[in-house]
């Protein structure tokens, strides 16, 4: 677990709750048991109780003290239906069909404060989890794009041990437009503030540093930065910067006349597209032996996260801890 153990401690101090919509999956049941036993959060499994109980019994997992809710028969179904119908301007009958879906019921629990966070994805595509988050919890103020980030922990970086960075977007937006890239930068900066253990310093990366080259790809980054400056005035977000100028103080000082707090000291790295972000995180993971934690979704009004379909129970526990730490 290493670096993630700090989030388990943070989560324990929060007394939050996590809704797990894929409650009949054995990995989710095992994770719920551990989340409950270790006091990380109050886990809520969604699904028909008899199905959850059958899977748990087969695996020898006790469900003592773990809440189970079947969205289709829940006494909250009508409340959530009314809320969803009102928010989305849909008929109650259509809204009820939406809320009976476990991901949407879970999203409505988070939206209404009946759960602190939702963690899903072992049986749903990422796009479906994003859809549920956007339509129930909605986006954070000023954000209109869901995106993702990795928490990268570098064992040894410039004399620092276990140095954490946020990398984004490495998993969701293939070719973000300038407004989308601005959303990614703002959401990642907010994620960094909550998770890095130090102030976030966000760099929009490029193959150019402050106009050292000219190309439409650079224009995209500078347009995004202009939007960020309008929407997030006063935040330590800078660009466009080459990666070395962003993270190495000596290089930043050589390449940038007036460096400011971000140049050379960035800890949130925003890549111009998914090619760059995905390649960078995998190279860092394997060439620097870094721990790649995630991907996590971001941009929602409250934390909601996606899991890989191959996630283990331990992955579910770690993701839950970080989501609770972000509440």
């Amino acid at each position, binding site marked *: 677990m290493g670096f993630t153990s700090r989030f388990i401690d943070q989560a324990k101090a929060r007394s939050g709750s996590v809704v797990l919509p894929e409650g009949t999956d054995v990995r989710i049941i095992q994770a719920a048991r551990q989340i409950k036993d270790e006091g990380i959060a109050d886990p809520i499994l969604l699904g028909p109780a008899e199905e959850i109980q059958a899977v748990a019994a087969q695996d020898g997992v006790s469900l003592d003290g773990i809440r189970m809710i079947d969205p289709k028969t829940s006494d909250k179904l009508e409340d959530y239906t009314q809320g969803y119908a009102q928010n*989305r*301007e*849909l*008929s109650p*009958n*259509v809204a009820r*069909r*939406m809320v009976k*879906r476990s991901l949407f019921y879970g999203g409505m629990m988070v939206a209404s404060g009946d759960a602190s966070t939702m963690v899903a994805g072992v049986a749903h*595509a990422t796009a*479906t989890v*994003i*859809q*549920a988050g*956007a*339509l129930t919890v909605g986006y954070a103020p000023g954000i209109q794009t869901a995106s993702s980030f990795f928490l990268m922990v570098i064992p040894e970086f410039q004399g620092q041990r276990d140095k954490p960075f946020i990398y984004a977007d490495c998993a969701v937006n293939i070719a973000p437009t300038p407004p989308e890239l601005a959303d990614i930068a703002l959401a990642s900066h907010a994620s960094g503030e909550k998770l890095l253990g130090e102030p976030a310093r966000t760099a929009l990366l490029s193959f150019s540093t402050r106009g050292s080259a000219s190309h439409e790809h650079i224009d995209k980054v500078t347009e995004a930065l202009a939007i960020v400056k309008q929407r997030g005035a006063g935040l330590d977000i800078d660009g466009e910067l080459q990666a070395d100028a962003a993270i190495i103080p000596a290089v930043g000082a050589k390449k940038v006349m007036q460096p400011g707090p971000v140049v050379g000291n960035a800890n949130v790295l925003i890549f111009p597209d998914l090619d760059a972000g995905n390649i960078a995180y995998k190279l860092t993971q394997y060439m620097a032996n870094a721990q790649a934690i995630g991907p996590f979704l971001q941009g929602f009004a409250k934390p909601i996260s996606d899991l890989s379909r191959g996630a283990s129970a331990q992955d579910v526990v770690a993701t839950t801890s970080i989501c609770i730490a972000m509440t």
Partner: protein
Amino acid sequence: MSDTAERVKKVVAETLKIDASMINDGSKFVEDLGAESIQSVELVAAFEEEFDIEMDEQGALGVKDVGTAVAFIEKHL
């Protein structure tokens, strides 16, 4: 034009809050009718309600325009 197609257009118009006259058999929900991609699941729920059917999630992901919606629904009727 089939009754199913007419009912699909009515549901699409109501859900996306657009005029039904804008919709034809080839209309794509996102590109032509201005739907957000995240709204596709609400369209599916609205079709389910109109036709009193259950559409499987995986198959429903392929419903991106009026024509495929009509074909998908008629298989369930």
